[in-house]
């Protein structure tokens, strides 16, 4: 079955604010009392210089550029990390595995996650993190104001592309949808599935998890690079052929139903 280009959502936001030269991120004159204390720019492998081994995860998702600013705003010390990725799926992928148990989510008119010490945000090719040092209400408020300003100046770009025949019917993605494309992404975002991908060289995995009647409902859309990779996955999951797809063996706790929907693409439902 072919993959189609099917619009899922087409929600456009008008862009009224003037854009800044974006390599600067924030400047002192953009908010009253804002002071940029330090700034660093990293692209290519120079990300090693900033987060050393942690950078390999970003490379896996297609890292393009990082701007880091340490600022003082409303007497709070905040650290902004702006990652520009090569694709919107790469940006969303990083966001999806870096967010966890958000106190508030999707509050800024885009996909975002707010916790006591951090606000994270995804849009277009952008992944953004604002960290405050103290976690106090005042620091959280300063972070929120700063994030709103950053949202205004982020250049608008194409949105996230979901595969055909898969996907949530909502824009509330945070904490529910993950995109994984490599070993490190699996380790960080879906470690319990790592074993299923042993011997699988290349893949794109969309993972959607919700609860229905108090029970987990998981759906995955996986595109493999080759028939051999698909075979390895099926072998690792111990699924058995059933009709036009595969299913889990009798007696297993999780009930898997897998259908082949493209040459090397499968749709997985786990209940």
């Amino acid at each position: 079955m072919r993959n189609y280009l099917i619009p899922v959502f087409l929600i456009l936001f008008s862009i009224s604010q003037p854009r800044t030269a974006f390599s600067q991120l924030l400047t002192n004159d953009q908010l009253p009392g804002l002071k940029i204390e330090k700034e660093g720019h990293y692209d290519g492998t120079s990300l090693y210089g900033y987060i050393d081994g942690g950078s390999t995860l970003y490379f896996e998702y297609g890292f393009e550029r990082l701007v880091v600013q340490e600022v003082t705003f409303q007497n709070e010390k905040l650290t902004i990390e702006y990652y520009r990725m090569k694709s919107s799926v790469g940006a969303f992928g990083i966001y999806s595995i870096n967010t966890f148990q958000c106190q508030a989510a999707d509050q800024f008119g885009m996909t975002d996650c707010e916790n006591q010490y951090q606000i994270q945000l995804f849009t277009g090719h952008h992944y953004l993190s604002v960290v405050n040092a103290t976690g106090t209400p005042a620091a959280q408020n300063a972070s929120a104001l700063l994030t709103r300003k950053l949202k205004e100046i982020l250049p608008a770009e194409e949105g996230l592309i979901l595969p055909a025949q898969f996907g949530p019917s909502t824009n509330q993605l945070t904490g529910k949808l993950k995109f994984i494309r490599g070993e490190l992404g699996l380790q960080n975002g879906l470690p319990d599935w790592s074993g299923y991908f042993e011997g699988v060289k290349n893949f794109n995995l969309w993972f959607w998890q919700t609860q229905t009647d108090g029970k987990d409902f998981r759906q995955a859309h996986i595109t493999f690079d080759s028939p051999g990779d698909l075979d390895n996955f099926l072998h690792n999951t111990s699924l058995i052929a059933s009709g036009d797809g595969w299913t889990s063996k009798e007696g297993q706790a999780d009930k898997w139903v897998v259908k082949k929907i493209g040459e090397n693409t499968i749709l997985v439902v786990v209940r």
Partner: protein
Amino acid sequence: MSGKNENHPSGRRNFFKLLTAGGAGFVLSPIVASAPVEAAEKMPQAKPATNIQDALKFPRNANSMPGLFPGAVTRVNHSGCIQDKAIQQKAVDQMLTAAMLNLTGKKSVKKAWRKFVSPDDIIGLKVNPVAGKLLTTSHELVKAVIAQLETAGIPRKNIVIWDRREMELHETGFLPENYPGITISGTEQKDAKGSFFDTNGKLYGEGMIDKEWFYWADVEGSYDEYTMPYMVNGGKHSYYTKICTKQVTKIINLPILKNAGGSVTLCLKNLSYGAISNTGRLHEKLWHDSVAEICAFPPIRDKVVLNIVDGLIGCYNGGPAANPQFICQYNLLLAGTDPVAVDRIGLNIVSQKRIEMKLQKEEAPAASLFLKRAEELGLGIGDNSRINLKTIDLA
């Protein structure tokens, strides 16, 4: 913080062109359409060759890993070690004392430390500031160690706080004014003007590596001009820092209780990737092997006499970077001479936390591969059933 400060052409690829109602190609909505995604990048392939056989040719000595107490780990818990988000120095002092006395079986702090070091030693404290201020080896633990070393008769001038990047040490507060009389040193260095290069255009880091000691692996490091100062050299050789090969005679390892994906970055990782140049090339294909193998060379294997894991504050996901939502208070220290056994216990703790937080249902299948490799190399004991873990609860 460093790097280049110039405009960056985006260089991004357009995979497709969107058709929208208004004809605009760019939107702020998170989802707009469905389409195939970009091809995935390569997964790790076959394991490259290394020069690990060279390491095994060097005879061991009395200090060689796993040290005086193979398989022994002491865990000290203190529920009051952090109050109002501040680490309590007095509590840390008590925890360290309890750990040292329990591990060594000695009755005094002085005698406990003198099992490992003498006043003639130059002692390197290997800290971990790589994640920045949010998640560095705590100053309270470092100060407790220094105070007890002084009690054991070690002069401050014989103590070196070190890591790979001197600038990260400074950014996280390991500064001369905070540690008077103690040397603070890193392999990768900048001068007062913020330059990595001396007046002859040579990297300061080049002067800090010892080309007589290297870890060779059949993986090529190739870096741009902005990355090279952080790697010191490219190619297939990673050179040991002179801090390990020449400057210090003993090393006390002070990592943080952190995850690295489903695994951990504790004793062995803190030592291995902290002690050599050109590490970037090793992550993808050789992480587990290199973490163990680098520690099997004499500059590390024969000098690390003690490991004390800072588990006061740590993280269970997002590591080795500091992602605030995953930072937690473990309220503990781990101590042992056997880095493999200590790492095994640390992995148990982090894995349990990840399970509690519903990040995973069981320990990740590949999480302990580096322990297996380290055990093969005789660096310690990685099997839970053979580890003698003693736990002390102070509060």
